[in-house]
């Protein structure tokens, strides 16, 4: 190679580099442009929305986009950018999400590289982790707003697998999940907790007290199953019995209480007894969640 050619080559390289820097605002942006030359506004699976999201904020150096643009999550795209031979398919990027090219574990490790603290701290070993769910099984990244983070849309995502809860949420007595005023994640942490049923709080009752603080007490006359677990009587995802009871009264109460008047068989069509109509047992034992009245030992006051 003679000196003239070397100089020409260097000059051309510098010109190209200069043009890139001027036009794209820097080396980092150029990396994104090298992807969006193909994955542009006409691409069938729009990727450009990522620029509206927290994932693509260059000023936040924690984001993978800041130093590595698309490759921050998808890995080195060098092989992917090479034109395939006529009879071959293009090599996919090292990490593709929601597709078979990349194992679920590898997909998730990419996400967990940043999102492994806070509410996702206990992901490893969690129920959904063991079911080999990918983060993108629930999350959508290349959209302005991830649907699962929207209370009104989250239920749709969760109940695509949790069929029983989907049916229960439609029942006449249910929390306002279907109406978007509550979401599954108000009570559960799908990323894993060390608690029963992925509950956010340490047990069922602490979870319920978040909204129903009046039930916490402590009171003078406690009702043992109430104090121990609300779900002894209630079906929190929805029921056909008000208020979200597993079974109607008085039969619900009679599962634990027989003796004196509670031993009676409540059936037939003579429904004018105070043990049947209205609130049945709660016509009198109204303080079923516990009473603080000195004379409330029968939970009537």
């Amino acid at each position, binding site marked *: 190679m003679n000196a003239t050619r070397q100089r020409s080559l260097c000059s*051309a390289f510098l010109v190209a580099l200069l043009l890139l820097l001027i036009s794209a605002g820097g080396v980092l942006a150029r990396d994104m442009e090298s992807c969006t*030359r193909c994955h542009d506004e*006409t691409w069938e699976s729009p990727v450009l929305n990522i*620029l*509206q999201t*927290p994932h693509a*904020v260059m*000023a936040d150096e*924690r984001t993978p986009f800041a130093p590595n643009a698309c490759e921050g999550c998808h890995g080195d795209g060098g092989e992917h950018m090479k034109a395939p031979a006529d009879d071959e398919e293009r090599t996919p990027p090292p990490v593709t999400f929601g597709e078979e090219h990349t194992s679920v574990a590898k997909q998730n490790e990419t996400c967990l590289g940043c999102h*492994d*603290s*806070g509410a996702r*701290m206990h992901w490893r*070993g969690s129920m959904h982790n*063991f079911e080999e769910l990918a983060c993108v099984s629930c999350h959508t990244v290349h959209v302005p707003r991830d649907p699962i983070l929207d209370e009104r849309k989250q239920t749709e995502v969760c109940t695509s697998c949790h*069929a*029983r809860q*989907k*049916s229960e949420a439609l*029942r006449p007595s249910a929390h306002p999940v279907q109406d978007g*005023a509550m979401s599954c994640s108000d009570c559960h942490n799908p990323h894993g*907790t*060390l608690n029963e049923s992925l509950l956010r709080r*340490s047990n069922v009752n602490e979870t319920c007290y978040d909204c129903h*603080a*009046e039930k*916490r*007490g*402590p*009171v*003078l006359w*406690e009702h043992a199953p109430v104090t*121990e677990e609300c779900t002894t009587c209630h079906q929190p995802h929805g029921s*056909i019995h008000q208020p979200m009871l597993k079974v*109607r009264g008085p*039969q619900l109460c*009679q*599962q634990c*209480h027989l*003796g004196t008047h*509670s031993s009676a*068989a*409540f*059936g037939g069509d003579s*429904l*004018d*007894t*105070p043990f*049947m*109509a*209205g609130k*049945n047992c709660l*016509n009198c*034992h*109204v*303080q079923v969640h516990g009473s*603080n009245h*000195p*004379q409330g030992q029968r939970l*009537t006051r």
Partner: protein
Amino acid sequence: MRYNKLMAAMIATGLCAGTAHAFDMDLGETVERDEEKWAELTEISSEVEVGLGYVDEMDGNAYRFGHFTGLDDSGAYLILDADLRHRDPHDSDRARHWSLRARNLGLRSRQLETEYGEQGRYRIFFDYTEIPTRKADDTLTPFRETGGNLRLPEEGSQATIEEHLRPVEIGLDRQQAELGGEVHLSSSWSLRSSFSQTTREGTGTIGLGSHWAVGESIIAPLPVDETTKRYDIAAAWRGEDSHLAFGYRTVQFNNEYDVLRWDNAHDVDWAGEGEEKARAPDNEHHEVYASGNHRLGEQTHLSASASVGRSLQDARFVGVAAMSRDSLDAAVDTSSLGLQITGRPTAKLRLTSGYQMDRRDNDTGQVVRDNTLVIDPSYNYTRHRFDLGGNYRLASATRLNLDYRYTDTERDPAHSESSEENSVRARLRTGIGPRLSGGLSLGQENRRGSTYTRETGPDELRNYAWADRDRTRGGVFAQYFPTEILSLSLTSDLLRDRYDESDLGLTEADRHITSLDSYLAISALSSLHGFVSYEESDSTQAGETWVGDRREQVLAVGVGGKTQRMNEQLELGGDFSWVESLAELDVDSDGRLPDVTTRVKRIDLYAGYQVNRELGLRLRYRFEDYDSDDWSTTGNIVTAGGNIITLGQDDTEYQAQSIGLSLAYRF
């Protein structure tokens, strides 16, 4: 020559990058970028929606149409929604962002979410939510509410009750406001804090019975005015192999009404002395909590969480009894501990083992009533739970999960001193080719408790929640993709409980539910979905002289779809759901009770037309057909026997619809 080509390619690359061009894979050449489309995809936009809606009660009393929706008043309502967002450009040197999201501002189900911050540095937010519950407004009561008490007109009596009835709405409004923030102190430390206040106001219902021997009771409207305040502060630390979060939270509940004083409408003379009940007392809870994990090895993680709390209640006793204290001065200590270790000894095997402890310790101490009755309000329990689980990949598409759990609960004082539970579950999932996957699950649980003893009641009765129980679980599930655009999912689960040691109480219960889900992606812009779910539960319950058989069936069906037409200018969507339930109870000695049925049909339709990039029209329609038949809550003010004064409520049966037309402006 070779170097000339290289030089030309480099210059071309630079030029291409310097102008708005893109490479078209189909054409195999560089084409000019569609700047408008590019901007639409990359630039954040905001939207404000304004319009009018109308609620129409087609048939019956549609007050419940507003349950959780706020659509309880017939007539027009304002549609005012907003989704305002700002984020500095992605390549800016600042990462400021703010957003304001408002929904249903013209209804009592309004929601507001606001946020401001700089990504990676700090964030503050304010949220506001209203949730209306609407039960009935066709109810009648003789009571007048004064200061949270229920009074009767002095000139009245049970004989003239019909003359003193007045209408009352049964419904509550929950309002919650929350203010909070988060700051990233360094790359490792962050701090967050929030304060919220929830108020619950309105009218619920209560049973007012004090003379069970004569069989009298009244269903009355209950004034509700409660406030709950919560404060939470927490710090989080993120290390290379470890994470830690710890914080403090407190909850303070205040009931505006500490006592309910009420007149007895069964009295012959309503001018008599009233009676009283205690309301839920003010209480507060304080808790410190911590959670963390640590990577022990490449594939081994240790997780832990713990909390210690104290619940206090010091509301003055109501009533005339002489108590050894003016108030209960109650204190309950709560604590929890969770530990878990997860590892992956081989590429195919994952193991996890966990322990959880949950304890409630009532530290209140004894109280003496009328110098004679010693009351010990303590109810304590300690629960230990051990878990062992594994997931083994038998083949590339076949996994086996095995889980074992042991739970030990000790209670004091002892209705049932302790109970032990052992459960084993197995779940096999496999794929048969690329289009079919499925599996089955099996589980066996047994619970053994000590004898349930009560002061009154037959010895043979076992407490449902703690009685000896053998539970069998079974389930099948399958997912089938007949084509690339259609998916079908089937799940069927069976639960079988046997209480063989219980001669009285619940003796057996079965529950099974089968669901079929389908999704059809007609194109990238059009899809259909549907599901059907059927559940049946049966149980047998024994009294001393009777046996009751309960049977319940619930059918839920849903279909829907959405599509975008006219070059994505027109968006159409709709959902239809239908839920029907039937509850039967047959008591051998007394006969079958009337069935309790509910049928709810709902249709939601949506149409959006985007006139241009900025302007869009939205049309929403909702129809609900609700029909419930419950003999226990409907009927006469005074029942045939004259012993229950009800609210005279009718069966909930209505048809209602709402329609809303709005203009959306995007900018």
